[in-house]
């Protein structure tokens, strides 16, 4: 609707739209972004990256490598994190004390120092139960938890969902050395895979208004009834974090700050201020909010057999999948020219063989790789937790 008004303003002949490049946007904005939280009782994974300028639609994250990351306790303890790939820094499992507060300290490769505020250890209570409900909109994953000590109140969850997928076509054959095919072994099966996605929503809950610290039937995820995720078997692992009220407010705002860009009639966005600061230059923005505490988690499985029969998977991923009939020797009767289709399309990998072909001649039934090979988006190795 705002857009429409904007158009009205535009229609006046006298108006004029001019491309500009505000210096603030083109300045090399290269702020440190800190993701992750200090974990008690398990290993801590902190990811460091840099902001990038608003120029392209799909940008690659810019990991921050070769930094020194430590967790410091208020009584002087220090725990180092080991750099891994992609800007991840990992610690050993730490047993932190609830009597102390902790902070993250970072020294980047260019020598700049950053530190978070000291944050109290807030250990998440166990997840009482993770369940699901069949609703008109789809499968709702929900969660119950409570804190008998009445001290948590603010919660955040994220999840990793794993689901079984099937390829559009079941391939019996595998190309060997780009010049022949043979039957697949069990390990080489590419029809049945497991795909894992991480949550990209910020899921928050609060019991602050209640007299007891109880979270009941909190929706964690909602899977549309026609989702491919539910076609075979679905599993979700939900991690539960306890937050301070400040952290809760930070995540609430981050959730509200969508990816919209300020057009003239759009709502006012606002800057987000985390709890990490530059020690070298206090005015330098640093993005992220560090929390600390033990994480609890819970997993459930949902088998397709327990879902309504009317829920049929819609798989747009396989749009454009057809079976091709490729011949070893395709002789054009009018010209006598021989096209060796299998050699041309299948052996180099442009198409993946499904089965052998006898008519109209010796050859292979094939299809495009994504229609046949589910390892392109998952793994054909059953995860250890799968049952």
């Amino acid at each position, binding site marked *: 609707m705002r857009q429409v008004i904007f158009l009205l303003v535009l229609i006046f002949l006298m*108006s004029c*739209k001019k491309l*500009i490049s505000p210096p603030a946007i083109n300045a090399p904005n290269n702020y440190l972004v800190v993701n992750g939280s200090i974990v008690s009782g398990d290993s801590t994974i902190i990811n460091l990256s840099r902001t990038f300028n608003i120029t392209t639609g799909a940008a690659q994250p810019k990991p921050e490598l070769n930094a020194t990351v430590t967790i410091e306790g208020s009584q002087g303890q220090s725990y180092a994190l080991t750099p891994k790939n992609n800007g991840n820094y990992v610690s050993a499992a730490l047993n932190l004390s609830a009597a102390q507060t902790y902070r993250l300290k970072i020294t980047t490769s260019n020598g700049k120092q950053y530190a978070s505020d000291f944050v109290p250890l807030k250990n998440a209570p166990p997840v009482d139960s993770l369940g699901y409900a069949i609703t008109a909109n789809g499968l709702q994953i929900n969660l119950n938890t409570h804190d008998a000590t009445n001290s948590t109140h603010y919660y955040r969850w994220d999840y990793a969902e794993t689901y079984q997928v099937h390829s559009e076509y079941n391939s019996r054959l595998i190309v060997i050395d780009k010049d022949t095919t043979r039957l697949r072994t069990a390990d080489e099966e590419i029809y049945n895979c497991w795909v894992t996605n991480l949550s990209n929503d910020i899921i928050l809950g609060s019991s602050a208004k209640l007299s007891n610290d109880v979270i009941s039937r909190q929706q964690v995820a909602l899977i549309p009834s026609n989702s491919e995720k539910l076609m075979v078997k679905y599993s979700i692992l939900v991690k539960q974090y306890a937050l301070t009220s400040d952290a809760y407010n930070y995540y609430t705002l981050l959730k509200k700050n969508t990816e919209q860009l300020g057009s003239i009639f759009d709502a006012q966005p606002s800057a987000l201020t985390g709890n990490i600061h530059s020690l070298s230059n206090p005015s330098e923005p640093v993005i992220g909010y560090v929390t600390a505490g033990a994480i609890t988690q819970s997993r459930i499985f949902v088998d397709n057999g327990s879902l309504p029969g009317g829920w049929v998977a819609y798989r747009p991923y396989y749009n454009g999948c057809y079976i091709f009939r490729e011949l070893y020797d395709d002789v054009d009767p009018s010209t006598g020219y021989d096209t060796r289709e299998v050699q041309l399309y299948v052996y180099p990998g442009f198409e993946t063989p499904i089965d052998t072909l006898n008519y109209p001649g010796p050859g292979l039934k094939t299809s495009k790789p994504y229609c046949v090979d589910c390892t392109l988006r998952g793994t054909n190795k059953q995860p250890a937790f799968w049952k």
Partner: protein
Amino acid sequence: MKKIYLSIILLLAVKLLSAQNLPTKAISVNFQNANAEQFAHELELKSGYHFYYDPEKFDSLKVTLQATDKTLDDILNVAFHNTIYHYAIVSAKKQVFLTTGREIRTQVAPGYFNNKPGAVQPIAVAPVTEFTDDVKQPVIEATIENKLYEVGVKTSTIKPGNSTLSGYVKDSKSGSAIAGASITVAGTKAGVITDQFGYYTMVLPRGREVLNIRGLGMKDTRRQIILYTDGDLNIELLQQVTRLKEVKVSGDKVANVRGVELSVSKLDIKSIKQVPAVFGEADVLRVILTLPGVQTVGEATTGFNVRGGAADQNLILLNDATIYNPAHFFGFFSAFNPDIVKDVELYKSSIPEKFGGRISSVLEVTDREGNKKLFTGSAGIGLLTSRLNIEGPIVKDKTSFIFGGRTSYSDWLLNLLPEAYKHSHASFYDLNLDISHQIDKNNNIYLTTYLSNDNFRLNSDTTYNYSNKNANIKWKHNFSNKFFGVFTTGVDRYSYDISSAQVPVDGYKLNFAINQTNLKADFTYYLGSQHTLDFGFSSIYYSLNPGDEEPFGSGSLVVPDVVPGEHALESAIYLGDKYDVTPDLSISAGLRFSIFNYLGAHTVDNYAPNLPRIPANVVDSTTYGANKVIKTYNHPEIRISARYNINDDLSVKAGYNTLAQYIHQLSNSTAISPIDVYKLSDPNIKPQFGSQVSLGLFKNVQANTIETSVEVYYKRINNYLDYKSSAVLLLNQHIEQDVLSTEGKAYGVEFSLRKNTGKLNGWINYTYSRTFLRQDDPNAGELINKGAWYPANYDKPHSFNFAGNYRFTHRYSVSLNVTYSTGRPITLPIAEYYSLGSERVLYSDRNAYRIPDYFRSDFSLNIDGNHKVHQRFHNSWTIGVYNLTGRQNAYSTFFQEQGGIINGYQLSIFARPIPFINYNIRF
């Protein structure tokens, strides 16, 4: 002949200076349709006086009169009352002179032989800066000014002490009231200003006084009176006959220095008309934007910000009716018809206690009263709009009407646009009809109505429609000449709807409406010479439809969505006293007590105490029945201002006021838009409070022709509503979850210079002002800019305005308008990053950046037809250029993703010089 009379007068005056006794012999007469000869003869016989007159000039005199035991003076007085005939009695010689038109004075004017300083000062002669066509009758004027009017019950000796003089100041030509005329007692600093009905009351010492009267657009004049007891004196003023000279002999001439109020700007329509406007049509609101302390967020908006207040914190009144949307065409035109408007008054600081309900300013637009003597009218033709106004008497001298209408025909302009916009449509109209009726001397009734409508459609898709409807009736009653009251009742409505049926399945219509019913009574009581009391009450019943969406067209599958209606009662009582402590020190102090009741039927969500208002924290909800009081707020509001005259043309003034506002406009876009939502205060949304201190120094130079002032102010605002990121305002059932309570502070200094007379006139001002907001709502859940102060959208530190008019001859004048201001603040997205599984955008601190500075100059040439006063039609042309330099001022900066690439754009409106032409005719 003229000379002879003058000689006689002078001779007689000198001779008879000490012989002023009038004939006391009582006579009885009975005239039935007597002609001049019979009349004079009879009186000569009975009184023994000899009559001198010109029979030719008295050939139409017919007298019907019965009198018993009356003096000659009384009989003549009754016979000639309200006629063109005058008489003069020279008792020493037993002579009576009868004249027509002119009057013989048998005494010299006061002060003629009395040059003692301070006794009766000679009338300050206003600098002769203008030429008057009216040279033929200077004697008449002089005579009128020099006549001694006797007021009250005549007594042989005048008791020392004070009496009350009251009456109306009217336009001699149209009979309409002149508001804001100043009446000052010569030689003193005492004076009053007529009210909106042209009524005045003043307390002054009994005896001989000279009153100087000045009215906006009227000739300065004076009256000599002998005040015996309390009495009435109606004063008729002559218009500035040469209407084309944009000269104002302003009623405010001394008001700048003498008035108690600070920061009040009054503009009459003449000043407004000479400022070049974008399509050549005088625009009340655009001129307001050139005043010091007034800002706007953008060019195509009529929302304005006064001294750091938000746009919804201005109370806009058209003849006491609240106008919620003062704009047509998204702000390209203001809603006020320039042909009907008489004057505009903007209160920035000293808001009289009778006003309330908004915390920033009051803009009072007053229509003219219809001509009570003859039918007149005017018409104007512009590129996009035409207008017509007609006025005249219904009952001569008693009842009159004024009607004004405007309509647009902009579709031709839209048809010139590219195909994509060709099927758009935009139109508006507005109508004013005002009737005033004088029942008798003490009772007047005024009926004012206003209707405006805007309709536009974009690309045959969405249709927008919005409308103001106002009607009120006012009864003014004089209880005595010291005490009068005005009773007003009326209804105000603002509504809009948006509909679309392009996709039949999605066809919808969204409605929104505010209705308010007003009742108020305002009383003024003149208590002695030093006190003027104002008191009264007001009550407004609000009924809001905050939005409902319904299916539009057959086949629509839209599910109706209705936000429940809101009701409230806002009431206030007030009392104020203007106290003249000494002639140099005046204090105006008032108290307004406002009460707001939020009424059912409504269901209110209850949030857990001390927690953010988010869905997770809704504990339960309470449903209230119809007219049940859900929540009551009240607030005492203080209004104080004081003025001290350091000398005659230099004064210092100070003011302090506090205000409360119970209705909020919810708009999270930078521009005011017709589809903004209004919300009443409720248990979850507190009223806004504002307070301001201001101090000013006022100096008039060059015989009051140049007014200068410096004013400083500091203002605090509490509970102003700002918005959470991505707030949804339309059709939001839980609006309190999307708004944040913020506090604001604003301060500034305003320098102003205004020249009202002369060939070159206009004003120039510079303002340095800052406005900051800070989020202080503990229950909002998010902190904008970490809870630090941030500049408001309309924070433009430097602002400079020049509006000037230079008259070459009486027919040609040029106007120039120059505006500069700092660009307004914006929030920019500055970077992207990945966090918690998604790509996210990093914004700068709110309003951390600014769009480029704004500069614009407009020019117009006004050509008037000939200046003959008596002709059927008067016509005039206005030709000009808006945005002379063609500067591409940024209206806004925004970002759009196109093909995966995000680009920044700057939008400019009126980005090139725009010529315009306008033709006006008056009849």
